[in-house]
């Protein structure tokens, strides 16, 4: 056999990917991540697997492949960023960070598609974003999206997503009371959550208060920047992160809470995102240490048990809760506090639904291929409510159920808890 080939030094110095080579080198090529990867399962090509993508990254860093190689872009674009590979990897490869670094590096050479840039620009502009979601909400209220949800193709799917964002639960208003002794919390309202899932936001506030937290408003907050970071627009994400850190510092609460798994994953990574920014790194790390998913706070509190409400439900874990934040048990603890629920286990509940931020808009065909088994598994459960804590998943799964004619809706876990508390208030308990 030939003699050892000396591996050259990094071929792309100064790029975000160059700073991530230690993470790339942690991959030992064992293949344990293959069966965890939804795109590998759907396509059967190692280039669309974690191991293959890491190999592509390594080839970029070593100069074997050029930054403008179209195949590299194809396979990196197809990654959902679901990070199921991270929770399968014994070697601790920080795949999420590698993906962001790779996308940021590739974006320097080839701009992301126009669709993606428009969406990101929209999310970064608070006023405009609010106007757009307000319009969407008005449209939703007309009931037209539900009628148009069966239209074929992407357009019909978009209407179905909008229609499915409406809360499936109606509940009586009730006044939530607690001691406030568990500490003060500010809610990251979230662009999509506040725009289309306001009911879940209010439910979050009420259930936290009922479990003895004090809610403190944080008025100057922005989009969390998760979509930007995932798309490789790290600078855009950093700008938004700095604004949020300042806004929540000014609010002065002990903790920051979110009910959107995707937002929460990035809040917890602000420290990493701003690690090289001397002026902000310490503040960012402190902010990340204070960030929590709502289910973590509720689980820590017990939580208080409500009155019985009877639904047959199944839980689907959002990737950014399960794999990125590694929060597994807490949402189930929240459901445990609701008497009367009939809980059915969902096969492969830790697999991605294909929503993945704006992925379903950029890679609709593959997104649909990843989604199909999820819907089939849900149908088998016979559940009428699919519980999941992330707006993208709520709409993606909700839309597919609606279009497939499966008689089930999606709902955020805190909304169910809230409904249970509302029932308790009504019965005077």
């Amino acid at each position, binding site marked *: 056999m030939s003699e050892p080939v000396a591996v050259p030094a990094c071929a792309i110095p100064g790029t975000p990917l160059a700073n991530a080579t230690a993470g790339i080198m942690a991959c030992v090529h064992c*293949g344990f991540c293959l069966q965890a990867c939804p795109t590998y399962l759907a396509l059967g090509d190692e280039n669309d697997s974690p191991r293959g993508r890491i190999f592509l990254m390594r080839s970029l860093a070593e100069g074997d492949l050029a930054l403008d190689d179209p195949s590299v872009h194809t396979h990196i674009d197809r990654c959902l960023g679901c990070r199921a590979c991270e929770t399968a990897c014994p070697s601790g490869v920080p795949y999420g960070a590698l993906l962001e670094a790779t996308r940021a590096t590739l974006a320097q050479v080839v701009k992301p598609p126009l669709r993606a840039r428009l969406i990101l620009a929209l999310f970064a502009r608070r006023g405009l974003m609010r106007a757009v979601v307000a319009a969407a909400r008005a449209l939703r209220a007309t009931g037209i999206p539900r009628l148009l949800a069966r239209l074929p193709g992407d357009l019909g799917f978009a209407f179905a997503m909008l229609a499915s964002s409406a809360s499936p639960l109606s509940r009586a208003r009730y006044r939530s009371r607690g001691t406030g002794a568990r500490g003060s919390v500010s809610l990251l309202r979230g662009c999509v959550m506040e725009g289309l899932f306001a009911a879940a936001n209010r439910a979050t506030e009420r259930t936290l208060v009922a479990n003895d937290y004090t809610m403190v408003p944080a008025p100057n907050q922005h989009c969390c920047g998760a979509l930007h970071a995932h798309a490789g627009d790290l600078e855009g994400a950093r700008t938004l992160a700095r604004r949020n850190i300042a806004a929540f510092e000014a609010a002065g609460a002990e903790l920051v809470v979110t009910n959107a798994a995707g937002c929460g994953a990035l809040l917890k990574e602000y420290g990493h995102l701003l690690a090289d920014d001397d002026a902000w790194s310490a503040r960012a790390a402190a902010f990340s240490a204070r960030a929590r998913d709502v289910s973590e706070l509720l689980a820590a509190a017990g939580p208080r048990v409500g009155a019985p409400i009877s639904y047959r439900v199944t839980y689907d874990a959002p990737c950014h809760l399960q794999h990125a934040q590694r929060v597994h048990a807490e949402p189930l603890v929240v459901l445990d506090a609701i008497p009367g629920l009939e809980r059915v286990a969902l096969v492969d509940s830790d697999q991605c639904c294909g929503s993945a931020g704006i992925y379903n808009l950029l890679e609709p065909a593959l997104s649909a291929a990843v989604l199909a088994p999820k819907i089939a598994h849900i149908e088998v459960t016979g559940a009428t409510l699919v519980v999941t804590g992330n707006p993208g998943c709520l709409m993606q799964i909700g839309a597919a159920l609606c279009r497939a004619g499966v008689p089930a809706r999606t709902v955020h876990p805190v909304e169910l808890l809230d409904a249970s508390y509302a029932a308790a208030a009504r019965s005077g308990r």
Partner: protein
Amino acid sequence: MALHTETPSRASGPQPEQAQDRRGALIQTEALASLLAAIVGERGVLARPSELSAYSSDGLPGYRLRPRLAVFPHTTQQLVDVVRLLARKQCPFVARGAGTGLSAGALARGDAVVVGLNRLNRIISIDPLNRLAVVEPGAVNVTLSRAAGAYGLHYAPDPSSQTACTIGGNVAENSGGPHCLKYGVTLNHVVALKVILPSGEITTLGNADGEAEGYDLLGAFVGSEGCFGIALEVTVRLTPNPQGVRTLLADFTSIDAGARATSAIIAAGILPAALEMMDGPTIRAVEASIYAAGYPADASAVLLIELDGMDEGLDADVQRVEAHCLAAGARTVRIAANEEERTRLWQGRKKAFGAMGRIAPDLVVQDAVIPRTRLPDVLREIAAIAELRQIQVCNVFHAGDGNLHPNIGYDSRNPDESRRVGLAMRDIMQACIDAGGTITGEHGVGLDKLEYMPKIFSPESLAAQCALRDAFDPERRANPGKVVPVHSCREWVGA
């Protein structure tokens, strides 16, 4: 061992001579790609170098050979058509399952085309009454066990890679696993194979009744490392889940003590379902990973021992094993209290190889079998070699059957370290051979162990192996350049 390359592995570097040599082949490659695409569709063929790189390594990435083409049939018929086309074009090929092999067996030498079987992953049937299952070659090992679980059955051979590796790959490597100590390796569980020979002819070896018919050709095919053809359909025996299972973790302050306990347990006539050993560095790598199993981080060695069978009598065996461990110097012996703890203890063991990725950027693993009684001596010798070559060896292995897996972490970007690792690998192998051992327990010869074959086989026996291969693949187009060194065959042909 270090990074080995034959075909250009770096797309950017100029390779004028090779490009010239291969020009003829390259034109053919395009034509071949379109013929293959006519069978499997455009999306079933990879022809761009940038997309073929992902197929240049298996689980031992120190070797990189980029294939010229890769084809992925989606149905058995497509696979048959592909192999027949390759036969007509006289084209060499290499099967690839999940690419978790640890001997660079699935790499394409020369002009071989990679035939990827991972899309042929269906479980065709499960027959719970006769305890048989029929699967496509790309079915993942653990998927089969999960499906069989519905009937209280499982597929017994459980390589540590079982969540990723394919049954076809298992057949080709005659893979083992922790529980093979009691239940036997792949060969003991495959009852029939439908195979396609490199000529395109389809034949069935063995049968579901397990009756022998003349020569044991099934036995010859299992472990043939892809050199005899491709398994199209595999019929395996399923094993009933045991009534009772007890999992013990014994920890020791020296490797020696662990090795003595192993010998004592086996000598006492106890047959555990599994008996695995991990040394201190391995334990610490696992404990730092997401598969942390609660092994004592300050131990020099742990034994993971599983006993199974009828509930009656099981606890008496547990007590005997515990006594042997304590007598050999175990600090503590812990028994898994429930299924959750048992799973955790096993996950740590099974993901140990991957977890070692945290120690160094590159990793090589050796796979030798030695007589169990020589375990303490050989382990001491390996430690001395590590000291001499200034490298770090982690040991994690199937102690019960004397199958060693010394792992060495290193940085391939450091040429001196790579050289020392290569030397140490040879020293270790030599030590195992000298102790009366052999060069592969379960990972196969592939490319990695080729150089050791003449050390353990005489020229006559190598020539006989070539003759057997010729019976299946006279044109030597299936996985060329693997297992038996080419010159051995030339000598035989010339003789």
